[in-house]
């Protein structure tokens, strides 16, 4: 946050100071929505060991935004389109009963490379200067409007409803695809739908956190939660709690400091994950 505010020794007055600015409230609201969505989608991502796919989807914000600028579309739409296209590609070339992780990883790596290359091409073709590559990569926590918050909320609710609908078949297909298929779960469809949900969740969250830092919200909270509990419901609740802690602490610290928000959210996420590892490894 550029305009650093002085921290007093009175936590109540510090909090009231924090909530007295509209932009701060919007940032907290948007951050909360992104954190909840990323924590839930990320929990399944970590369980399915698809972190590399998640990371690739996050990187797709780059060709998405630059490509959208090139043809005159809103950057947000570019995020959604590029992430979805990547998810469909990964899903189409993706996991089958016999395909190894090596094959899947190779497919994802190819998508990532092509995406980055396309992004650089679009950047070169854009003769106008893009509205801040820093924003694209590290987020716009502080420039969020009320309208954007409502848009985020609607997309997040739709995605959470979709995840709830497929939760059990997705869990089954993730743990035991062969038996799930025999029991009537359309495994390939569920896999593909999850990748698209993950892609859209990444696109939503990265508008707030930026393409590089979305991963802090998508990976660290669920990874820490899964170290603590294997119960699916408890793990999801814990993952959301960690995600909220990351965003709220990150924003709170950043408010009183001259340094960027993204640094503090990411640091909080990493600290939570490392502390969890330290504590659980002693058990």
């Amino acid at each position, binding site marked *: 946050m550029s305009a650093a505010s002085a921290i007093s020794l009175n936590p109540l007055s510090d909090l009231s100071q924090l909530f007295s600015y509209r932009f701060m409230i919007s940032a907290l609201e948007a951050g909360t929505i992104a954190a909840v969505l990323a924590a839930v989608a990320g929990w399944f991502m970590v369980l399915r*060991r698809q972190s590399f796919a998640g990371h690739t989807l996050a990187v797709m914000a780059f060709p998405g935004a630059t490509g959208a600028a090139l043809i005159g579309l809103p950057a947000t739409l570019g995020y959604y389109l590029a992430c979805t296209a990547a998810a469909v590609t990964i899903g189409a070339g993706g996991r089958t009963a016999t395909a190894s992780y090596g094959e899947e990883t190779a497919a994802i790596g190819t998508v990532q490379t092509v995406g980055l290359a396309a992004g650089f091409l679009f950047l070169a073709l854009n003769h106008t200067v893009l509205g801040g590559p820093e924003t694209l990569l590290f987020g716009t926590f502080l420039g969020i409007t009320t309208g954007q918050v409502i848009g985020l909320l609607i997309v997040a609710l739709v995605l959470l409803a979709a995840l709830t609908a497929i*939760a*059990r078949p997705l869990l089954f297909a993730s743990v035991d695809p*062969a*038996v799930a298929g*025999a029991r009537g779960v359309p495994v390939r469809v569920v896999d593909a739908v999850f990748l698209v949900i993950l892609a859209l969740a990444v696109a939503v969250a990265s508008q707030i956190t930026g393409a590089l830092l979305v991963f802090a919200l998508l990976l660290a909270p669920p990874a820490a939660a899964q170290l603590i509990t*294997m119960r*699916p419901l408890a793990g999801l609740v814990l993952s959301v709690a960690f995600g909220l802690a990351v965003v709220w602490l990150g924003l709170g610290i950043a408010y009183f400091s001259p340094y960027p928000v993204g640094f503090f959210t990411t640091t909080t996420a990493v600290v939570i994950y490392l502390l969890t590892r330290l504590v659980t490894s002693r058990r």
Partner: protein
Amino acid sequence: MSAKSAISLRTVAVALGGRTVLRDVSLEVGQGEFVAVLGPNGAGKSTLMRALLGLVPLHSGSAVVLGTTPAQARTRIGYLPQRRGFDHSLRVRGIDLVRLGLDGARWGIPLGLTRSARERRRVELERVSEVIELVGASPYAQRPLNTLSGGEQQRLLIAQALVTDPELLILDEPLDSLDLPNQAAVSGLLGRISKQRNVTVLLVAHDVNPLLGQADRVAYLAGGHALAGPVEQVITGPKLSALYGAPIEVLRTADGRLVVVGQPEAPHYHGHRHPD
């Protein structure tokens, strides 16, 4: 064999990717029978199981499973596919794996808002602990799968296959990768379940020995054909020689174990999934 038929295959042929895997397989299995399906690698044992579940189409012939088509019978079948074991990083408890066998195919999540929904959940949880108890997995059902031994995982997988109270169990190499005492224990467990609950068991195995005394009959698959009957009538030199079209000898050791010599088996055994 009981009078009621569980499986009736007539001159079944199955082709996968243009290759004929099963040429002419006929097999009758009565309700409550325990049948061991044997044969060399690539004989189409797994394919036959998948055909019985309606997961691969028949090229010709007919299949009646539990009085209906394989695909329609699927919900009444407990299936344990051939596998390599669980990923070491998969953090799931055994009890959750068994539970998924019961409700994993349902959409949405249970909220327990109505009395009947809560009642149903209670009945389901009871059912889950009952089958876990039945296979003797209670002491470790709360532990993560990746910390369990192959035998412990296999018992939980059998519990998962049993949790829907199926009339037919199709188990693809459940004894694979188990040590000898565990092979005997799991085989005995399945024999007991088959007898006590009148469940038909079709079990694919590499070796008939752990199943001697449990299996009512064997079905030997080779060269796209099947030969079914009691062990002592099927696993004989002349019968297997005719099935393979090559000289096969069957030896019996002093402790009653059977050794099949001369079958054109893969040169060394490997535990990986093969694409038959």
